[in-house]
């Protein structure tokens, strides 16, 4: 056995795809389709539209906070893996929410796409639970001491999405203009939205 062959992930992946294709379990075209979908069509722009709708429509926000998945599906496709159970939590002047997956990389794919590298790093996963304020500060977000911080641990069962605070000075913005302000990091809870 060639040790380098058996440990090279590129070769192992190619071998696995051959084996699965031969058995009719996957087809390269179907795999292509899923890759393209998550590279191109599913990403934080979907969550941004959900947030903008919640900012402009109180009844929608109430539905979103009560039962997120059907509310998300009012705005966009919200199905597929890692979207079965999403819970939305609202940042306020008194409470700030931040999301992590301490054990691996659980993340609400249908609204945010695939997680960024830092979300998967052991440093973030371990530290944000212990010292969220310090981690947020390092990421450029200073929270006043009176704001309570709640860290949510995403899992295969529940994935969290943060509804950020609407920035000042956006009263006359359209929903589309608001969506353009919302960032991925704000929806993970490691940044604020600015106008």
């Amino acid at each position, binding site marked *: *056995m*060639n040790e*380098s*062959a*058996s440990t*090279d*992930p*590129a*070769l*192992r*992946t*190619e*071998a*696995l*795809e*051959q*084996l*699965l294709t031969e058995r009719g*379990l*996957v087809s390269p075209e*179907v*795999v*292509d389709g*899923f*890759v393209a979908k*998550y*590279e*191109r*069509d599913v*990403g*934080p*722009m*979907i969550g*941004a*539209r959900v947030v*903008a709708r919640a900012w402009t429509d109180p009844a929608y926000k109430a539905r979103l906070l009560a039962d997120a998945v059907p509310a998300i599906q009012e705005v*966009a*496709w919200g199905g597929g*893996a*890692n979207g*079965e159970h999403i819970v939305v939590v609202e940042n306020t002047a008194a409470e700030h929410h931040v999301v992590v997956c301490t*054990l*691996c*990389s*659980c993340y609400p794919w249908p609204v945010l796409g*695939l997680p*960024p*590298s830092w979300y998967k790093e*052991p440093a973030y996963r371990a530290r944000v639970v212990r010292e969220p304020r310090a981690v947020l500060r390092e990421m450029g977000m200073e929270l006043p001491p009176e704001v309570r911080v709640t860290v949510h641990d995403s*899992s*295969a*069962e529940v994935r969290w999405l943060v509804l950020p605070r609407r920035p000042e000075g956006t009263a006359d913005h359209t929903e*589309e*203009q608001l*969506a*353009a*302000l*919302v*960032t*991925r990091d704000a929806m993970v809870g490691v940044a604020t939205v600015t106008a």
Partner: protein
Amino acid sequence: MTPTGPAAPPRDNGELVFAAPWESRAFGMAVALHESGAFTWPVFAQALVARIGAPGERPYYVDWLGALEDVLGLAGEIDARAATLAHRPGGHDH
């Protein structure tokens, strides 16, 4: 659905979703197998947690691929096939 214009923001992170083509294949296979009912996501997630929690640190998609192999129980066959692929003639060694 491909949003464009001002409502298509935050890909502003400048970060590639996949660092190498094999990562995207490993990702796409897991999603395709899940969609076709080969396994439930919690089963895959549990395997991924076990791989990530193993001693040492590896690139994320190495653990992802390992979890997929574990769930499918194909590690032995993959060893053999990967060795065959490595000995392809004519400079096809990726």
